[in-house]
């Protein structure tokens, strides 16, 4: 290959390398170019649509099983027993956070909008069992006791409505969850 091509090879190499180094020099010298978030000391404010860990407000949940059917991988398992006014009452509502893929389908389908995404994302644990989140705090006994009390109260309200038989019997107002 001719001398001219030989020289142009060398010069092209030197010129293109110098151009590249000038750009890394620009980023290297200028301290303002840093884009690092110092995570533990700094935290990014999450947008309101962030799909972090799920949270179910058990009081408003109407146990309609829509979320259980909608989840493609059955992360949500719930048990409920018959409440006093023939509505179900939740006894245990578990979401396996180790399996959930944060797709948001269950949150969209939940009629009372009790299942929502929080913006929490830190949750490293040492065992798999810790990742199964249980939302119903109190155990079975207290729930049964509350339902019994609620049933007794309903019966009393029904008797009172009967006693005031002449007045049109006020239908027992829907109990709704008055657990809290």
């Amino acid at each position, binding site marked *: 290959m001719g001398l001219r091509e030989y020289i142009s090879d060398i010069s092209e190499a030197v010129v293109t390398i110098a151009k590249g180094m000038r750009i890394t020099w620009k980023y290297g010298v200028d*301290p*303002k170019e*840093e*884009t*690092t*978030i*110092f*995570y*533990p*000391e*700094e*935290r*990014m*404010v*999450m*947008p309101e649509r962030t799909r*972090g*860990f*799920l*949270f179910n407000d058990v009081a408003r949940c109407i146990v309609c099983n829509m979320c259980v059917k909608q989840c*493609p*991988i*059955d992360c949500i398992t719930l048990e409920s027993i018959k409440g006093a006014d023939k509505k179900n009452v939740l006894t245990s509502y578990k979401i*396996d*956070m*180790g*399996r*959930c*893929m*944060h*797709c948001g389908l269950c949150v969209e389908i939940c009629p009372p909008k009790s299942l929502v995404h*929080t*913006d*929490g*994302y*830190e*949750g*490293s*644990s*040492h*065992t*798999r*069992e*810790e*990742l*199964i*989140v*249980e939302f119903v705090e109190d155990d079975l006994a207290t729930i049964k006791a509350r339902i019994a009390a609620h049933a007794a109260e309903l019966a009393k309200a029904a008797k009172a409505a009967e006693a005031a038989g002449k007045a049109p019997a006020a239908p027992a107002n829907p109990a709704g969850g008055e657990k809290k």
Partner: protein
Amino acid sequence: MSQGPAKRKPIKSNIFDVVPAPAEIPQNVLQKNFERVRACKGGEGIIEVGIADLFINWCRKNSLWYLYYATACCGIELMQGGASKYDFDRFGAVFRATPRQADMLMTAGTITHKMAERVQRIYAQMPEPKYVIAIGACTITGGPFYKDSYSVVKGVDLILPKVDVYVPGCPPRPEAWIEGIRNLQNLIMKTKNYGLKKA
């Protein structure tokens, strides 16, 4: 080479503003769940760690070289975690290409049955003080492929002897990775290397 977070200008490419945060992690759903589970399981007891242990653990904690291993979506989050915005290098965690020089295996991405035997071999090739972080739903319980997939290993602890930290999320944010690494670092600080009575 500016050091602290406070002394910097707001970063042009950040859409959401960045606020200084308290040291400990805010109470989110999973943290409350951890307290509940740990409360009824009883504390871990006190592990007294000697001075020599402290120094060695401090050295091991601050230079956790992780293996450049990524199979699926969490692999992209691994790259984004190691890149400019959430920098793993700040914690001394550099990626190494060979299992021989890696201390930490972050199983990022789905492990299929065809890949399972390779992961076991990689784990065996790593020199001894080695740690495993199971990242993302696929490696904790098989994640999205738990119910209907025939070729996914349902959780990396089926194939690896010991998993130290589980980081849930699909894929977990790089901040959750960093929180997982710091969780592992606290674990390392509590390990006892000397004075162990040979069982």
